[in-house]
């Protein structure tokens, strides 16, 4: 049996739009949604991005340790099993 197609819906938010959602849900007292948009805003502000991975560099320079971290696509592949 082949894979079943499912449409994947993307909702791309502008930076200002996320801030507007934050204000709206804060006024409504919906704090779970506030926290949700705080995470999106933090992501947009680069909180989870860094260009230099110092431990990767240290490990790569060491002859005594070896770590080969999974790429995101490899990790996704490890949790999926096609039908």
């Amino acid at each position, binding site marked *: 049996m082949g894979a079943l197609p*499912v449409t994947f819906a993307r909702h791309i938010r502008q930076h200002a739009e996320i801030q507007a959602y934050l204000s709206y849900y804060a006024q409504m007292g919906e704090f779970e949604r506030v926290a949700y948009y705080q995470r999106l805003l933090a992501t947009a502000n680069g909180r989870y*991005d860094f260009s230099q*991975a110092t431990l990767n560099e240290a490990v790569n320079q060491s002859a005594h340790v070896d770590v080969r971290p999974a790429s995101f696509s490899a990790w996704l592949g490890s949790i999926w099993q096609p039908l």
Partner: protein
Amino acid sequence: MVISTVSGNEQLNLINASGRGRVRVFVPSEFEGSLTKRPSRNDPLDRGSSEAIALLRQWSSRMKFTVFSCGIFMERFHPYGLGSFDIGYGSGASGAGDFLVDLTNATAEYPERDSKGHSVRVCLTSVYDVVRFIIAAIDMGPSHWPREFTMCGDRLTVRDLVSACSGGGSSELFPLKVFLPLPKSPPGCHHLMPPVSGSCSILGMQGLTWARYQ
């Protein structure tokens, strides 16, 4: 050495107990973005982090500390959610679909550009690789650890992350697949126990909770 995965008051108590107990190195529960990228004040995602770092600075003449920043756990995008690994309850993002991509409902909500119009990027590391990196750092010797180590399994634009999750291009169809079950943990441990070698034992009280340098 103590590696913490608790936050808030529990971590503050753990820091004080470690300092009094003459622990030489403390690794706080700061497994997220780099310290330099966090707001210096009024951080809504702080969850006691700045208080823990301030306390560690007070103890730093007797007890060194190093933060291991790993970006986003890849397991946040697991169809069963980060909580299925016993992680992330304190962050409020332990459920499936709590962050950027909801695989179960085949939706994604995300920022593509920052306020200056640049592509938004994220660093990602699997929790299993975080464990491997920390063990490697311990094996290299903690005597010269910096205040912060950064590690990364992948660095992607959020757009590419969503594309990877949705299975391809921009107007793609999403192939329905079966999720592999979570791996069974060895007795006494939770999920974060990859096969490892070296001079470190990890005692799985709550996943990646303690490591003892032998």
